[in-house]
């Protein structure tokens, strides 16, 4: 479905990605983990056409999509939820949602979808006429996640959806992702909440210093002691014991 071949790229003069290669199969969930600053978000930007790629290739369904613009990526069924806050501050919640479907030709369908996601995240319905900037951190994140679900993407790139979400909503988001996968959507996700994320994923990918270090079944990674030690907060248990 999505394949990265030895991608190098970065910001300005600095090279951040030093050869990232992986393939993810269709209708699967792959979680990317790695230390802060490893280049996880940068990989997403590279895929979505937001990065200066020096070399390498990105293939979507076998088609070369290296250096395509975000709009072209959206046209090919890719959506992207970046890390951090990404709302249009002065527009209402509803209009922010609507922007999520702005590229769709069938606007009635988008409107119907909006109703559905508002059922899923009731807060959005309650606050539909408020400015996005006025929402709390987690509420804004809900808005963003909901916004990504309005089109019919075949690939969702979602960067740390759990930041700022309360535990029950994290579960809700994960459930939604699983449901989407079951419908045939491919999901590539970054999560620091890695244990929970890997537990629901098919595959896991470890990124470090801008390189793919490991790529395996999610359970395998979860059980790998080195991974646990280095990236899953291995000694949280030990800390708990005293």
């Amino acid at each position, binding site marked *: 479905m999505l394949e990265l071949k030895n991608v190098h790229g970065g910001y300005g003069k600095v090279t951040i990605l030093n050869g990232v290669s992986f393939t993810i199969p269709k209708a699967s969930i792959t979680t990317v983990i790695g230390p802060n600053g490893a280049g996880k978000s940068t990989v997403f930007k590279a895929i979505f056409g937001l990065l200066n790629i020096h070399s390498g290739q990105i293939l979507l369904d076998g088609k070369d999509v290296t250096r395509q613009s*975000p709009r072209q990526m*959206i046209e090919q069924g890719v959506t992207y939820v970046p890390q951090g806050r990404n709302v*249009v501050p002065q*527009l209402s919640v509803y209009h922010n949602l609507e*922007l999520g479907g702005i*590229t769709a030709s069938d606007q009635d369908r988008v409107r119907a979808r909006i109703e559905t996601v508002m059922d899923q995240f009731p807060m959005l319905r309650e606050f539909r006429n408020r400015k996005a900037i*006025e929402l709390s951190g987690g509420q804004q994140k809900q808005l963003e996640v909901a916004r990504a679900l309005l089109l019919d993407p075949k690939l969702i790139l979602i960067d740390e959806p759990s930041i700022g979400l309360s535990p029950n909503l994290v579960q809700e988001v994960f459930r939604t992702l699983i449901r989407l996968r079951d419908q045939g959507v491919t999901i590539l996700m970054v999560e620091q909440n890695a244990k929970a994320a890997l537990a629901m994923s098919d595959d896991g990918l470890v990124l470090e210093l801008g390189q793919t270090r490991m790529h395996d079944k999610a359970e395998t990674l979860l059980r790998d002691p080195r991974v646990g030690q280095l990236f899953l907060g291995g000694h949280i248990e030990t800390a708990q014991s005293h």
Partner: protein
Amino acid sequence: MSQFLQVMLSGLATGSIYALVAIGFTLVWQAAQTVNFAQGEFVMLPAFFVLAAMKLLGMPFWSALLLGLAISLLVLGLLFKKLIVEPILPHGGITLIIATMALGILLKESVKEFYSAEAQPFPSLFPARHLDFHGAVLSLQDIFNLVLCLAIVVSLTLFLNRTRTGRCMQATAQNPAVAEILGVNVKRMILYTFLINAGLAAIASFLITPVYLAKFSNGESLGLIAFIAAIVGGFNQIRGALVGGLLIGVLDNLTATYVTAEYRAALPLVLLIAVILVRPQGLLGTKEGRAV
């Protein structure tokens, strides 16, 4: 009494002109989050396009007007966006502001060098009919300006808030990065903004030049007053420009008539500073929401 009425009405009429130019400021702000300091020159220039078309091409007035509008859209809309806004906008507002200041000088000096340094008469779009209200005189043009201004404010507000394109333009201005990843055609939205702005500037130009006369330096004070009007009304609301413009027009005339002519430029400013300090977001402006 008739003096007071005259001053009020004239103030409103002038104010509507300020408002017309000020709308451009608020529009560019709402759709690109920047300030075009060449706005005054944008209003000065279209009249010269028309004059040039009449003088050099020998066109009749009305077709020259149309040609002037078209050239304005091309030069002040398309070219401005392509050559100046697009390359500089990513580097931040203040850089673009300085660039537009330089552009203002460029336009002004070009008109002076290539057309004329002297003021030129400009035909009026309206018959010179004057209406009498209890001893105060108002021209047909004044009334038209007021009505048009109102209509533009209403339709632009509706367009920006009620249409999807309008909201895409706002999204582009407020958070271009997000607009881009959602698939909004950011460049096109910016183009729309500047095309509308150019159109407005051209209309304002055709309306005011018969009275203000066509002169290369006309933009200086007009741009400044309109900028003030936009701020006072509230930069993030189109209708703020209307209120700000009318307020300044009236205050200026009242000051000059009843208080002081030497300080006529100052008193409105002082009043407005007071207003701004009480309502930092401008009269009709809305707060920008949470900061923490």
